[in-house]
C-alpha cells in the first residue's frame, strides 16, 4: 500500500475531516489506487524544468488604499450560523 491507515488519519486531521472507520479504509484504497496511477509522472525527467504556478504572466495589481464599498455588516453576516451583533460566535477554542 502506498498509504497507510495511519497516514490517512493524519491527512484527515490536517484537512479537518472526521472519518468513520469505513471511510478510512475506503479512502486508503482510493488514494492507493490514485497515487499508484500518478507514479507515471516519474517516467519524466523534469530536473531542468521550471514548475508552472500560473499560465499567464501576471504582476500583482495594486490599488490605492481607499474604502470603495459601503459598510454593511448586517447583510454580510445575515447567513452566519451564530452571531452576536457584528461578531461571529464559535465554540470554545481554548480551555
Amino acid at each position, binding site marked *: 500500500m502506498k498509504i497507510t491507515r495511519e497516514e490517512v488519519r493524519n491527512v484527515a486531521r490536517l484537512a*479537518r475531516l472526521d472519518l468513520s472507520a469505513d471511510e478510512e479504509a475506503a479512502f486508503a484504497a482510493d488514494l492507493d489506487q490514485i497515487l499508484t496511477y500518478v507514479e507515471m509522472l516519474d517516467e519524466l525527467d523534469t530536473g531542468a524544468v521550471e514548475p*508552472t504556478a500560473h499560465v499567464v504572466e501576471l504582476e500583482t495589481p495594486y490599488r490605492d488604499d481607499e474604502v470603495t464599498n459601503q459598510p454593511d455588516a448586517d447583510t454580510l453576516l445575515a447567513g452566519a450560523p451564530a452571531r452576536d451583533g457584528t461578531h461571529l460566535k464559535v465554540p470554545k477554542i481554548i480551555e
Partner: protein
Amino acid sequence: MDLANLTIAEAASKLRRGECSSVELTRAVLARAHAVEPRIHSFLARCDDTAVAAAADADARLARGGDANPLTGIPIALKDVIATRGVPTTAGSRILENFVPPYDATVTARLRTSGAVIVAKANCDEFAMGSSTENSAFAVTCNPWDVGRVPGGSSGGSATAVAAAECLGALGTDTGGSVRLPAAFCGVVGMKPTYGRVSRYGVVAYASSLDQVGPLTRDVRDCALLLGAIAGHDPLDSTSVDTPVPDYAAGLDAGVRGLRIGLPREYFVAGMQPEVERSVRAAVRTLEGLGAAVTEVSLPHTRYGIAAYYLIATAEASSNLARYDGVKYGRRSQGNGGLLEMYRRTRAEGFGREVKRRIMLGTYALSAGYYDAYYLKAQKVRTLIRRDFAAAFERCDVLVTPVAATTAFPIGARTADPLQMYLTDVCTIPVNLAGLPGLSLPCGFDGAGLPIGLQIIGAPFAEETVLRAAHAYEQATEWHRRRPQIGAT
C-alpha cells in the same frame, strides 16, 4: 412558433422587430422547464417571478430603442457555483445548502447589466468536482437525449437546460473539461475561454489556476455573443487579464481558407468508440473541404495530463475548500465540542464522498515530505504540456480533437471506480493545464442517437480563430438543428 427553441441571435432580432416580447420569451422557457424538469432535473433554485419582472424591465428598455446589446431580454441559466445575489448558491453541496450570497459574481453582474434574464441556477457536480453531475448532493441531472444516461459534468445542468430549451444560453465553469464535456454529451456548443479572459470573482473556487467560466449555447454565434457579454478585465479578479475584448461575432463568417489545423495523434486514444473517431475524422475532412490545411502533430506529454491534473487541481481545491468550516456561512454541525471538533464534523457532514476524496488527495500531495514528489513534480509536468502546445501552435492555428473517447455513458456506470471516471477527461484536461481556449460543438450522433462532440483548441487569447473555425464547420452541417425528444412527463 415555439419561442423557447430560438437561438439568442434569432430572439434578439425578433425582440427588436417587436415580433415577440421578453416576457413572452421568458414565459415560454419557464413553461418548458415546468414540462421537462421532472424528467431531467437541470435546475436547483428557480427564479420564475424575478425572471418575469426582469423580462418586463428588458421590454421597457427595448421599447426605449437604441439598445444594441444582444443579451437584452434573453433568458439565461447559471451554474450553481456562480454567485447570484439573493438567490441560493449551493455549489451542489450540503455545506452551502442554505447559502444565499449577498452579492453577484462579476459574470452575473455583467449579464444583468446587459439586460439578460436569469431564470434558474443549474445543477452541477458538488464544488464542480466530477464528470457526470452524479456528485451533486441534491439531484441527478439526466441527459435529454436518453434520460438513463449522464449529461456529463460538472456543468451538467447548464448543458441539459440549453439542449432542452429551458433557457437560450447558460454559463458553466470548466476546470478539467466541465463545460466542454457536457456540451459534447448533450449536443450543444460549450467553450472554455483562455485562462484570465473571464473574471472568476464570485465563482466558487475549485482550482484557482485552472477554473474559467464559459458559455453553453445552441450554436456558435450565440457562444460568441454570450462570451462577449462576460469577458474582460475585472479589478476584483487579480488573475483576469487586461487585454481588449474583441467583437467575437464580427469575424465569424470569415471562413477557414488557409487555416492550419493540427490533429494531435495522442488524442485518438486506444479504445475510442469507433463512431466517435469516424465523426471527428469526417469533421476534419469537412474543414479541409472548406479550405483548411490539416497536418498531424504530436503532443507527446498528453497521457500525463490526468496525473498532473489530479495532483494540481486537488491540491488547489484542498486549500480553496478550507474556508468551509461552519464559522461565517453555510452549514454548521451541532454539538458540544470545541472549535476543532466543529470544523471536523461540519466538513464531514457537509461534504460528499468525491469532494472529501479530492481534499484528502490534495492535502497529501502538499504535505511535508510529499510536496516535491507530487505537487511540485506535477507543476513541472504542467510546463512540459504547455511546451507541447506552444510548439504545435508554431505550425498550426488551431488543433482539432475529440472531446471524449465515448458518447454519454449510463447513470451509475462509472461511479464505482473514481479513476475510471477521471479518465473521462483525457482530451479536455490538457487544455486547462495549458490555459488555452477550447470549444466543443456537435459533429454527429452515434447509433443510439447520442451526440458526439468535436473539440477545437486555440492559442492563448485566440478565441476569435476558434469561433471562426467552429462556425464554418457548423454552418456546413445540420447537427446544430437537432433537438432531443424528451417525451411526455
